[in-house]
């Protein structure tokens, strides 16, 4: 369905929408990259596995985003997209990206963490949506 950034005065809101919960998460992950750089500038060269669990879909979303943020930080990578599978409370993902290239990516900010501000995970207007504000 798609992703977008939404207004927050000091930080950035990220929103993903899809036919399934997993697709909404995938789209929100692209929005997360868009906070830092243009996603199309990132080559999906290296796969990185992500795995998180939570019974509450809202906290599962935060755990998912925080896992991506952690991998971005310690691997010094950016991700083009993430394939997500959700079974019950368990999420498995493979993030596809490459190491930060300052000249090419021109990354603006590090994302510090996902916040519970404007946090929403659920169905809206006939599709799944996942959103929150991330601290930059």
């Amino acid at each position, binding site marked *: 369905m798609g992703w977008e*950034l939404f*207004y*927050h*005065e*000091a*930080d*950035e809101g990220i929103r993903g929408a899809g036919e399934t919960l997993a697709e909404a998460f995938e789209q929100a992950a692209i929005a997360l990259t868009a*906070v*830092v*750089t243009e996603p199309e500038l990132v080559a999906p060269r290296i796969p990185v596995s992500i795995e998180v669990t939570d019974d509450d879909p809202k*906290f599962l979303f*935060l*755990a998912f985003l*925080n896992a991506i*943020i*952690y991998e971005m*930080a*310690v691997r*010094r990578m950016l991700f083009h997209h993430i394939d997500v599978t959700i079974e019950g409370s368990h999420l498995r993902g493979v993030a596809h990206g490459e*190491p*930060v290239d*300052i000249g090419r*990516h*021109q*990354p*603006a*900010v*590090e994302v*510090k*963490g*996902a*916040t*519970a*501000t404007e*946090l929403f995970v659920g169905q809206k207007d006939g599709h799944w949506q996942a959103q929150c*504000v991330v*601290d*930059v």
Partner: protein
Amino acid sequence: MDLSRLIQRGEYEWELPQKGSMRVPGILYASRALVEAMDEKVYEQVRNVATLPGIVGASYAMPDAHWGYGFPIGGVAAFDPEEGGVVSAGGVGFDISCGVRLLHTGLHIEQVRPILPDLMDALFNTIPAGVGSVGQIHLTDLRMSEMLRGGAWWAVEQGWGRPEDLDHIEEHGRMAGAMPEHVSRHARRRQCDEMGTLGSGNHYLELQEVADLYDPGTAERFGLNPGDVVISIHCGSRGLGHQIGTEFLVEMAKAAQASGIALADRELACAPANSEVGQRYLGAMRAATNCALANREIITHLARQTFAEMVPEADLTLLYDVSHNTCKEEIHTVDGRQRRLLVHRKGATRAFGAGNEELPPEFQQTGQPVLIGGSMGTASYVLAGLAENEERSFGSACHGSGRAMSRRQARKLWQGRKLVDDLRGRGIHVRSPSMRGVAEEAPDAYKDVNEVVESAEMAGLARRVARLRPLGVVKG
């Protein structure tokens, strides 16, 4: 913000009346224009903070308050642990102990102007800045724990700082009560290559000229004279603090949900200060504070090395180092009684006045330097704390100008390269790895810092001492 819901208590003081589940009123310190320009979310967040258990006095907002998460940025709240008071990860923020320090250089503008572009290049090449940057220091787990206990003291012991700096840092360079054992493996992993790095976003190292004095007597005591060149460093606890904030925010939010605590906003995630999770958070948060103090000390060391090579006659001495995302245990007199409180300042600076025993002898007569960072094209300020403000806001003041628009809006309005060229035309040399980052940090994306500090002074939070004009900026 709709002023009709506020009671004006003075030209620069506005009360958000206590009602509903609020335990105390809210107090906003700002001019009418600044309050009017504040987002409605600030109203909601000041009100929500006022509902938290054990809050004392009021839920305060500083003149630069804007929409944060849970607490407003520019929010101050104190809690009494002996009366069920809480500690809140959201009330400190992700960048624990983010702060500003100001260094004298011993140089005059006329000595620096001819070499300014080369000096900025050298600083940019020496101090790691921006997304993905790493430092020269790589910490093992054992050394990480030593750093988390020792703060700036640890950096000095390693040879990355001067002993005389330590008394010019809040907490005298080392926050007591740090518990590295509560800092997770993930937080340590995020930090092991990030010591001595600036970070990105609104973090910077800036060369500045002392442009105007408002209080010449205090300026003299602070060693600030017109034309002096000084250095501001703005950064925090890097990946370690971000990870600790992330982990405890979720843990506290879940714990509140599980125990049936009705939070007005999930992001107010908090725990009783004397609970197990509250104590664990305090231990980890204090360790992150030490990480920030060590980080700014190491960046100072790198700046000193650069100046020693480029301008040997320079002597970089530390005026003061303040943190503005903190939770500190402080003793305040409330209703005639001394109480030990946990004072949360999120995007707010401690501003203790003359005579406070926490301050070193040289600031006993003046109050502490309060360092206010502006945007890269405008100005920064040195203020001084006021003793009488300890009754107004537990001795707190603003921390910066605050954003006037989102990063996305700024990207649409400005181009980084053109901004760099325009600023160079005004004598301000910007060095940044990211032109997109520069666009998002455009000077006009921020509120008017002059109005913010004027409000701080008029509200009696701190008094203006000096205005600093930017000369060169290393942006992350």
